[in-house]
């Protein structure tokens, strides 16, 4: 188990190195970094001095090592547009994105699993068929359109929920949370639904398909032959077996929830990392873009690692193969 975790952790570091190379090379693709710092009338000698002071005359490998070393300590340099350290900008914005992503994922998991189980067990009811039809819409409608439709309905027409922003925010240490105020919670609802709807339909369809598959297996038939109650069979035996692949997908999707948050955050003017990134792209603020790329991949890689470990918790068969590698 420990060896497995270590092995996966080393792989994760490898992936991060690769992403680091990409984000490092972004500085070069956008032209000479020195030109972006100095003004037009700076003399060549001064440019050279800047280049030297920034270490840009060192070999590329050295530069990369320094960059990656700094990034590992969450030092991403200074933003061109804000003239502030990127890490503090990100730290300021991260709680908003994470809260949104977590709420969206919880929303998607809870309703996705409930609706999936229902539509598998009561396959022929009208409600199950409505779920199936609605899920098609959820999968095919683009996120920004759903967001705009929700804003139109609940903010503009009904006036129930705010159409933008995070509402009132409470500071807990360095973390800012909107979960503790009423306006913050209200502001979370529409973005969470917008962001989670695609995941919800995905999870629902997955749970339904997996559940139907599991219900056909021999051990479910045998469980019925043993006279277990329908509830024990459906929720004890079938659901647990269904959840193995659902955990993987939901876990891996959490990364894309954060990535997709860019769109939702733009639609709702949500002050998160995604919005910061979009603004950075507009202003060619490369330190922010590079840092965002690294952060998102770090989240992805971490989630992958956690999912792999969770797997072994749920499925005992994996545990023993890990103990004695065959």
């Amino acid at each position: 188990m420990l060896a497995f975790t270590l092995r996966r952790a080393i792989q994760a570091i490898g992936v991060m190195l690769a992403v680091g190379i990409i984000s490092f090379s972004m500085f070069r693709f956008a032209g000479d970094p020195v030109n972006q710092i100095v003004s037009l009338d700076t003399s060549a000698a001064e440019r050279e001095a800047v280049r030297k002071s920034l270490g840009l005359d060192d070999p590329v490998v050295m530069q990369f090592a320094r960059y990656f070393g700094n990034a590992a300590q969450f030092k991403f340099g200074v933003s061109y547009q804000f003239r502030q350290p990127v890490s503090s900008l990100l730290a300021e914005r991260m709680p908003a994105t994470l809260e949104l992503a977590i709420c969206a994922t919880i929303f998607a998991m809870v309703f996705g699993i409930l609706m999936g189980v229902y539509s598998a067990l009561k396959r022929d009811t009208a409600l199950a068929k409505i779920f199936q039809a609605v899920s098609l819409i959820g999968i095919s409608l683009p996120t920004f359109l759903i967001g705009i439709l929700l804003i139109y309905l609940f903010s503009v027409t009904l006036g129930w929920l705010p159409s933008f922003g995070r509402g009132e925010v409470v500071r807990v240490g360095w973390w800012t949370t909107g979960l503790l105020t009423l306006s913050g919670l209200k502001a979370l609802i529409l973005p969470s639904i917008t962001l989670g709807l695609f995941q919800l339909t995905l999870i629902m369809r997955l749970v339904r398909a997996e559940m139907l598959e599991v219900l056909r297996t021999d051990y479910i038939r045998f469980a019925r032959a043993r006279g277990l109650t329908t509830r024990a069979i459906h929720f004890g035996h079938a659901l647990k077996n269904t959840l193995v692949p659902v955990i993987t997908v939901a876990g891996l999707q959490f990364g894309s929830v954060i990535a997709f948050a860019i769109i939702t955050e733009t639609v709702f003017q949500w002050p998160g990392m995604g919005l910061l990134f979009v603004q950075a792209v507009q202003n060619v603020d490369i330190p922010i873009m590079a840092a965002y790329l690294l952060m998102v991949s770090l989240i992805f890689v971490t989630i992958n690692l956690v999912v792999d470990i969770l797997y072994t918790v749920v499925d005992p068969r994996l545990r023993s193969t890990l103990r004695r590698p065959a």
Partner: protein
Amino acid sequence: MTNPVLSVRNLEVEFHTRRSVLHAINGISFDIAKGEVLGVVGESGAGKSVTGLAVIGLIDPPGRISGGEIYLSGMRIDHLPPEEIRRIRGKRIGMIFQDPLTSLNPLYKIGDQIVETIRTHLNLSETAARKRAIDLLAEVGIPAPEKRIDAYPHEFSGGMRQRVVIALAICAEPDLIIADEPTTALDVSVQAQIISLIKRLGRDHGTAVMLVTHDMGVIAETSDRVAVMYSGRIAEIGPVQDVVQNPLHPYAKGLMGAIPTLAGEDKRLVQIPGSMPRLSAIPNGCSFNPRCGFVFDRCRVERPEPIAHGTQAVACHLYDGAAKTAIKETAA
């Protein structure tokens, strides 16, 4: 004779498909007495497994029991509401399926699965149920049961898993065990162990056993009586020695002829020409008539009903009074 443990009367099972209604079971009747082992043989698709599933009430739509009655110790069970038949399943009728590798839920310890079943049917505390589970595992021949109870299914071999399945089937002391091809998925040396285990359990607890298999060897070794099934009907039923040594029905004759013997090794085995009709195309009259060597006009129009013949009962017009003598001559 007192009430038989299981009594099946004119059972019919049909499957509704988009095109037509398929009759999987076509009016079969048999009894199993306390402590008796009834072997049910036949080719694939003869309706052996469906009969077992019908008894335990696990025929799923589009299939349904469309006629006849099933009695368990005198109580009719074929029209019970789902919740009541569920209480009978596992408690009064235990079932063993063909493939032990897939019969157990891979995510739960075997002990938990046994305890769960015991506590569903018997009013026992967690500790008492666990103790009972250990006793059961010991009874079915799992070594070191108090340790193995906390193992997962994948940590057992196929034969050991089938023992666990058997422990699960008998955990509430059922009156009847339905074993659907319990040894087919196992290798030969393990087969013998499982067969003798089922036989011993039946004897020790007075449990009636319905043993579904296509293996005549298993039947001859285990069963008291045997029912030969052919396309949803019982062709012949009787004590196992009589049916094996003196089969009456032409199909049963063919089956017994197809078993290789140690003595006459140079002889070619008898083959029954053709194959069993598909459910969608069962011929009129006797369903065996297109393959039968003794076929005559009546077989093509009239379906034969079981006729008592000594200790056996046989569904064949050959044994019906007047016709009988005529056939004897043809056969000779």
